[in-house]
């Protein structure tokens, strides 16, 4: 992918990248920093991307790494801990944003990518490097915990 194509694709994807980073990190400033760093890393290595159809998953993977780096850096600061899947009542009592933050990580990541960033289930699986069936199962479990009634076909974010 050349630099012009990269620039055009980033303009399209940046909103989704920001939403992903925001839901990983929880603040606007951290989300912007993570997107900036991911876009910089994408820019300097976009020529390595030989199959442009994977741009969204490739950039999302770079961004997720940035978010994880940031979370590792701040691991000593106090964050609300994840709740186990058995804590259905606690999830129910929380506003959706807080409930999302406190989902177990293997459930939270597919939800962010699928229902907030605009990736398809197949792209979500690719970005997280997990089988598509696993992604679909985790999405179903997460939606159940969040008491959200979104089917995969509904593609809630895409409808908006």
């Amino acid at each position, binding site marked *: 992918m050349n630099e012009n194509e990269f620039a055009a694709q980033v303009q399209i994807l940046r909103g989704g990248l*920001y939403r992903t980073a925001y839901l990983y990190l929880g603040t606007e400033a951290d989300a912007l920093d993570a997107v900036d760093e991911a*876009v910089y890393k994408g*820019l*300097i290595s976009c020529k390595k991307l030989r199959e442009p159809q994977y741009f969204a998953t490739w950039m999302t993977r770079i961004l997720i790494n940035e978010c994880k780096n940031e979370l590792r850096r701040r691991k000593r600061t106090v964050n609300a801990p994840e709740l186990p899947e058995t804590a259905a009542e606690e999830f129910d009592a929380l506003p959706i944003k807080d409930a999302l933050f406190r989902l177990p990580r293997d459930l939270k990541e597919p939800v962010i990518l699928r229902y*907030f960033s605009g990736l398809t289930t197949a792209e979500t699986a690719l970005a997280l490097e997990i089988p598509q069936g696993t992604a679909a199962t985790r999405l179903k479990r997460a939606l159940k915990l969040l008491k959200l*009634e979104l089917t995969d076909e509904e593609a809630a974010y895409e409808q*908006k």
Partner: protein
Amino acid sequence: MNRNDEYNELLDRLEETPLKLDFTLDRAKLKRKEHKRRINKAVFAPLGTLAAVFAVFILLVNVSPTFAYAAGRVPLLRDLAKFVAMSPSLSAAVENEYVQPMSLEQTANGITAKIEYVIVDQKQLNIFYTLDSEIYSAMDATPDVMGADDSYLSACSVYSGGSIVKNGDLRKITVDFPTGTMPDTVKLRLKILDNGTAAKEATAPPSDTNMLTECEYEEPVFIAELNFTLSLDPYFTEKGEKIDLSKNFTLDGQELFLNTTEIYPTHMRINFDDSNFNTAWLVGLTFYVENENGERFEGISNGITAIGQLDSPMMATYMLESAFFSDSEHLTLHITGVTWLDKNMEKVRVDLKNETADAVPEGVEFELSDRKKNGWTIVFSAPVIKENSAYQLWGWTYFDAEGKEHDLNGMSSSEGGYWDSEKNVFVGLPGRFIEEFDLIDYPYDEVWLCPAYSRRVTLDTPISIEIK
């Protein structure tokens, strides 16, 4: 409100992205440019030849009893002593057994990489390693250097020699930290290239030279990737001292300020500042340092020789061989020559159509500007400088009439003549250094180039300043 309403409301909120997000790509481009500029502003000197390494090693073993003793007494260091013979600082480090053994080994795709030793201090990490394979006989490694958290270390420059090395022979990667300090842990990724294939590709016939094309970077195909984690011993990474000097002096009519000297086992640094009232920027120095016993420490001739500033053309830090192991009580800096960039020559107008320039660096001749379909090929010549066979005449940035900034894609330099692409003849210029570059997608007839220097001065009387 049910959960789906909550979800839709959260989506609506997230739809409103901050204005700053619109400029994320601009910030990425700016960061890339600053990174390139930082790399470009570190001046490298070429590696010596392998033959010279052997000659120096034999000479050192013959004339230096301590060197022969160190190399002979520790058989494992013998190869390392031979390998670093061209570097007075690293040789002194080996003589003093200032070496951290590593003994790390990784194998992938039939290729084994071994990291044998490191020589490290506060500011420089030298990694000595070997590559071996029964399948590949001509390998090269591209190193990536990262911190413990896998992030690229942005405050360092990585330098690995490009000469052909036999399987099993030592190789070196140097990581310099111009501003930052050495981390406790460094991750190294060696991406291995089959040079046998690369060499064949290099002999492919040249493409059409009548059209300037963007030099598209082709990612090489790596045959293996080997990952190492280097835990650096704090005993070594803490080594080094910084001496405050705060001395003003006048050099060739310009006011300079000698800030500090830094003495590390691997090298020394001398840091200057200048006066706002100067009419020229300091861009080069010829100098040496001498101790009370007459022992001389020359400027670095193999690696980073000077470090510039991001906000001005000044080269503020000069690197030289280390006096760390010399037990010197006093060190004196002797400046014998200086290179200036006059402030009124930071940008000069060049008339491409008529092959004239408002000004050029001292001794430089405008040889050729050849209009191509989508730009220009430009050739300048200058006197050959024996001590620096690959110096630079012009900076990497140029401007059009509207002040828009452009970057050169590359420069080529040679000696003795150039190919006149307009007339299809070779123009011989014995004793002249040649610098050639292209202005791609540049349709205009004039350009503003940035000289790398404007004049060189050899001092009749060297300036001497005590720095320790």
